[in-house]
């Protein structure tokens, strides 16, 4: 048992951190958040150059063969920098779907393009009115012989406004809440009948509502087994959850640094406010919560690659629930300890807080995952 990172991992993290400190300062990030795309294609190209976009892919497709712990390292730093670029949707979500379920030719075509920074992708899975239920799919894909016609709507598709290709889940069989009968298709953004309505999200990134009106795709657009995509989707989303937990830990760490600094420099009543014991203790609780969250995020990153689906479910839901709770209390405390400065747009504190809050609402909130974890106790 050891918690040490390899030299390669430390080097990667260090490079990325230096890049972000230099090229992704808070004011630059603000400009990007207000731009049309909501991120920088240039930064994206640089992330590709650093090898980040190739991280989780096998070497034969131009990847670095990294595991979930590598992704964790990267996401922590991206969180710290509040990076807007669509890493989660493209590399983690769509990337792991293709890696794990794609045909040889799909992998050949898509993975190197993602790794090289030429292709943006995402997953469109959740639908209006489903909340966080993964098997609740009403979108249909009807076979017409050698093609499929896709109809339905997908909501809050992360990075959906910029994605060149979207992996979409649809029913090829089964009823609305069946586990079986769900399939995945790769659809180009320009496909006739596909309407994408992009919008900014609360944290400054981008998402989209997507509408599929008789969108026709060929048989070769099928990704993975027909009717059997749910386990693959669950795994990809679990990878994404682990990545989000790491991002949250990166943000909490940054918030703690900012708050501690504020406590030491902000003076009231003739002394730094960090001399007040009630504030000290709240700061201590933030640190404890963050360290505990880091432990849980680490546990999930180490386990998600190696364990069976049931145990993966347990550990990943544990992490999402627990990190979410920590993030809530750390975020709220950071804002409170900053006083008025915590609720203005000008400082990064409010932006960290908003991102933490939105992470909670992505792929199931704290109560959703606590519920999954709790219900598993029935089988104990």
């Amino acid at each position, binding site marked *: 048992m050891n918690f040490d990172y390899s030299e390669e991992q430390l080097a990667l993290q260090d490079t990325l951190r230096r890049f972000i400190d230099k090229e992704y300062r808070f004011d630059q990030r603000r400009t990007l958040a207000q731009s049309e795309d909501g991120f920088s294609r240039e930064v994206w190209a640089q992330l590709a150059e650093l090898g980040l976009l190739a991280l989780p892919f096998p070497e034969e497709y131009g990847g670095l063969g990294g595991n979930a712990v590598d992704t964790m390292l990267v996401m922590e730093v991206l969180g710290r920098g509040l990076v807007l670029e669509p890493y989660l949707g493209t590399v983690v979500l769509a990337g792991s779907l293709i890696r794990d379920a794609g045909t040889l030719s799909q992998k050949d075509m898509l993975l190197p393009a993602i790794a090289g920074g030429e292709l943006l992708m995402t997953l469109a899975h*959740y639908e*209006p*009115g*489903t*909340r*966080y*239920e993964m098997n*609740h799919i009403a979108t249909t894909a009807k076979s017409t012989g050698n093609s499929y016609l896709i109809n339905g*709507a997908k*909501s*809050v598709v992360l990075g959906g406004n910029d994605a060149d290709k979207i992996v979409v889940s649809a029913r090829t069989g089964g009823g*609305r*809440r069946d586990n079986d009968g769900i399939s995945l298709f790769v659809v180009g953004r320009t496909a006739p009948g596909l*309407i994408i*309505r*992009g*919008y*900014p*999200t*609360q*944290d400054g990134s981008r*998402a989209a*509502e997507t*509408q599929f009106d008789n969108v026709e795709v060929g048989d070769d657009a099928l990704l993975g087994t027909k009717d059997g995509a749910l386990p693959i989707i669950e795994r990809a989303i679990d990878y994404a959850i682990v990545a989000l937990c790491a991002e949250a830990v990166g943000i909490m760490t940054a918030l703690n640094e900012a708050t501690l600094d504020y406590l030491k420099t902000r*003076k*009231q*009543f*003739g002394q730094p*406010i960090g001399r*007040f014991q*009630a*504030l000290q203790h709240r700061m201590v609780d933030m640190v404890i919560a963050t360290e505990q969250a880091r432990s849980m995020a680490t546990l999930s990153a180490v386990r998600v690659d190696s364990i069976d689906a049931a145990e993966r479910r347990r550990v990943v839901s544990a992490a999402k629930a627990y990190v979410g709770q920590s993030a809530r209390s750390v975020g*709220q405390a950071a*804002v*409170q300890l900053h*006083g*008025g400065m*915590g*609720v*203005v*747009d*000008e400082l990064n504190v*409010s932006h960290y*807080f*908003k991102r933490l*809050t*939105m992470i909670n*609402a*992505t792929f199931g*909130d704290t*109560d959703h995952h*606590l*519920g999954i974890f709790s219900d598993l106790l029935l089988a104990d």
Partner: protein
Amino acid sequence: MDLNFTPEEQEFRVAVRSFIDSNLPLDIASKVRNGSCLGKDDFVRWQKILHRQGWGATMWPKQFGGAGWSAVQLYIFDEECSAAGAPMQLPFGPKMVAPVIMAYGNRSQQERFLPRIVSGEDWWCQGYSEPEAGSDLASLRTKAERQGDYYIVNGQKAWTTYGHYADWIFCLVRTSNEGRQQAGISFLLIDMKTPGITVRPVIMIDGGHEINEVWFDNVKVPVENLVGEENKGWTYAKFLLGHERTDIARVGRSKAALKRLKQLAHREFANGRPLIEDQRFRDRIAQVELELMALEITNMRVLLADGKKHAPGPEASILKIKGSEIEQMLTELMMLGLGHYSLPRSFEALDAGARRQSADADYAAPLSGNYFNCRKVSIYGGSNEIQRNIIAQMILGL
């Protein structure tokens, strides 16, 4: 002991409700209920309507144009306004500067300023905090130097809510550096149109513009705008801090918000069923309802006790702490209730097609922003940490 409203109080409620029903503009009520931002015009329109009814400053003594209502009546009025979606009456004029002018201002100040507050003609803002003087208000540095019939004011005020709408600002300024910090502060009324005043917007966490910095650069303020005596401003400021009382617990508003939260939980779906059937979410609603039930009683206990001794007490800090916590719980639950629909920043981006498929669209838009924005309520007006200090010192003698 009797927790029922008297028949007279119930009649009073009916009268208030019926007045609001017939007079509250629907567009304003709809904005309030959806948690959208109100513009200056919305506040002023409603103030003028209230003024026509003689309810422009209900909490004032009758001699100054108030309604002469009891604490219970004021509470009922507040509850009915909140339930109907009337705009919250902004405190700066009627509840903050006015009581100071009544208590410490001279006759001519009272005649000049009070009627224009109650009529909605003058919009007031508060010049208390400064960048370096927040919780530690007495360390303020904005300076007013006497030159003949004028004070020359230089400095900067921070966190000035709706300063960009204001006609007047009431300021704490430093007129002396001698003795204790508190002993050199004066209370000045300043016309916002005076040359040398600059208002700079501060954008809030939710992207909205409510607050401002106000800069004073050799601003000439006539000495007749000094309230009370020079260097006695701290006394007036403390008097004022104890004043904004009848709705510091914000029970009426929170009751209305709780009702909206329950509606939301019936309209949103989880796992194919109404969200209210999700026991975990329902329990959270139940929990905040318990807090609010208790606070409603605590609030009345404090108000009725105050009514007797006619002096606001530090118990108001209890109301502030609990009231703000409840407001924050409610905004948080409304956001959580939306699930992933809490992410979009603006539903204006969703066209009608998407709206049809999402039960959320119409009322969901401002909810995340409201949650973010509402973090301020445990910070402003003396953070909850300061409120705890006040209770520890003033009630517990620690």
